[in-house]
């Protein structure tokens, strides 16, 4: 069940200001329409996790952690490991986030980030089988939003990817039907590096990486997750407003270019074709 959300408070003056500037080709913080804000990525933030990354995108802060354990496979994929992605919009991140179970926004965010990793076949899940039908590795990614400054999708997807790409997980062996943890650690090998790019849709303009003010001014976004060769593995429109075909194609073009910039932040030496 889903209900039309409350409007978030933004003054008409600010909203008109954002629109007026957009018509003149400008944004409130002086960025170009297709510029990202300043990004800082810190991996290994949580030592106890098998992998972790803190992403600071403008004033948005997202922390992702990866835990690798063992468990039962899904019945329809008995020889594959299990991947799960959850997201929490922590109440400390915004006065609009209430404590409680994940709401539709948190769940939609998690599922979108999940699709990026899963549909791109970034991880070879067949490598994570211990005993078919009985025991497999569980790769559990948890994204925690710590400060909501806009564009949670891109920050969350980036944090999840950065955490995964630096994950070192313990190797388990099956001994008498039990999964036993060894002292050996293996790095997580990724075959693809899916990157999310999100645009706010303001009348007929596309604003990449919307700040929180821009988000409140429009309420509608289009996000893409793409790979290094520009193939797309996930698309999502969020919000009440609609989009034309020409805007859509323009957004796809920009996201192909811009996602490469983000990918380079994680892998500056350019070995982005995957290691698997």
């Amino acid at each position, binding site marked *: 069940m889903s209900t039309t959300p409350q*409007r978030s*408070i*933004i*003054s*008409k*003056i*600010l*909203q008109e*200001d954002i629109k007026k500037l957009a018509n003149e080709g400008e944004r409130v913080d002086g960025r170009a329409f297709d510029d990202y804000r300043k990004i800082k990525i810190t991996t290994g933030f949580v030592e106890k996790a098998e992998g972790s990354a803190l992403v600071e995108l403008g004033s948005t802060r997202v922390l992702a952690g990866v835990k690798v354990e063992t468990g039962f496979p899904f019945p329809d994929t008995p020889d594959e490991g299990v991947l799960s992605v959850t997201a929490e919009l922590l109440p400390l991140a915004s006065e609009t986030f209430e404590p409680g179970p994940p709401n539709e926004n948190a769940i939609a965010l998690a599922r979108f980030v999940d699709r990026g990793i899963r549909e791109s076949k970034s991880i070879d899940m067949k490598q994570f089988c211990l005993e078919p039908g009985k025991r497999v590795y569980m790769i559990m990614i948890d994204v925690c939003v710590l400060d909501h400054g806009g564009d949670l999708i891109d920050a969350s997807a980036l944090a999840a990817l950065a955490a995964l790409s630096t994950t070192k997980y313990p190797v388990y062996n099956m001994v008498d039907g039990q999964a036993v943890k060894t002292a050996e650690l293996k790095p997580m090998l990724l075959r693809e590096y899916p990157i999310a790019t999100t645009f706010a849709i303001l009348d007929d303009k596309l604003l990449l990486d919307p700040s929180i003010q821009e988000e409140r001014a429009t309420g509608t976004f289009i996000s893409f997750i793409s790979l290094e060769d520009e193939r797309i593995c996930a698309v999502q429109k969020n919000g009440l407003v609609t989009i034309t075909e020409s805007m859509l194609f323009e957004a796809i073009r920009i996201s192909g270019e811009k996602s490469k910039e983000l990918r380079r932040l994680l892998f500056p030496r350019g070995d982005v074709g995957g290691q698997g």
Partner: protein
Amino acid sequence: MSKFVEDRQIVVPGEVLAEGEYRLGENVYRNGNRILSTMVGLTRIDGDKLSVIALHGFYMPMNDDIVIGIIDDVGLTHWMVDINAPYPGILRASETFGRGFDPTRHDLLDELKIGDVVIAKVFSFDRTQDPVLTLKENGLGKIKDGVVVSLTPSKIPRLIGKKGSMLNIIQQKTGCQIIVGQNGRVLARCGDKTMEDLAIKIIKVIEREAHTSGLTNRVSRLLESEIEQREVGKR
């Protein structure tokens, strides 16, 4: 009577300022014989009166305060206004419709909609009821242009300056009209965008450095040099 702190010293909640029969100013409380700070802030010693000027606080409405509010809810007989305080402001329909207000004929949305920005005055507030606002004075009412900047409410006095000195300097040098809301919102109405950006920048500088001395001179010099730079840029 003994003092443990100097004037303009940074103190934290629970820090003992003095012992004895001092008068209590703001943000201090008495515990037995001792007077303690309730906030992180700068001490102010005024003879035998002890206060702490909070460095980072929120706005509590007081009667006669000028505030800048955003309409965030509309009912049959009043609007609810976000005044950046723990309590919402109440604006009664009679404020814009006058005595002849009739809920069966008049629609509040015709006058003020959600998201509209108003300059209002706090008409009455005691903590048992939400603050009642009024628009019935010169200069009050719906705002149609300009930019609204937010800053920590406790720094507003610094923005105004002694007898308005700081505010005058900013207005003179930028040519902007600046209306200051006690609730930490400031409206800047400027002729051009360059001056508007400059006014916003200066307000942010004042917020960051409110607790330092010599600020008025520094602001004056900064305004001059920034304006000069922008003039040079234009040529």
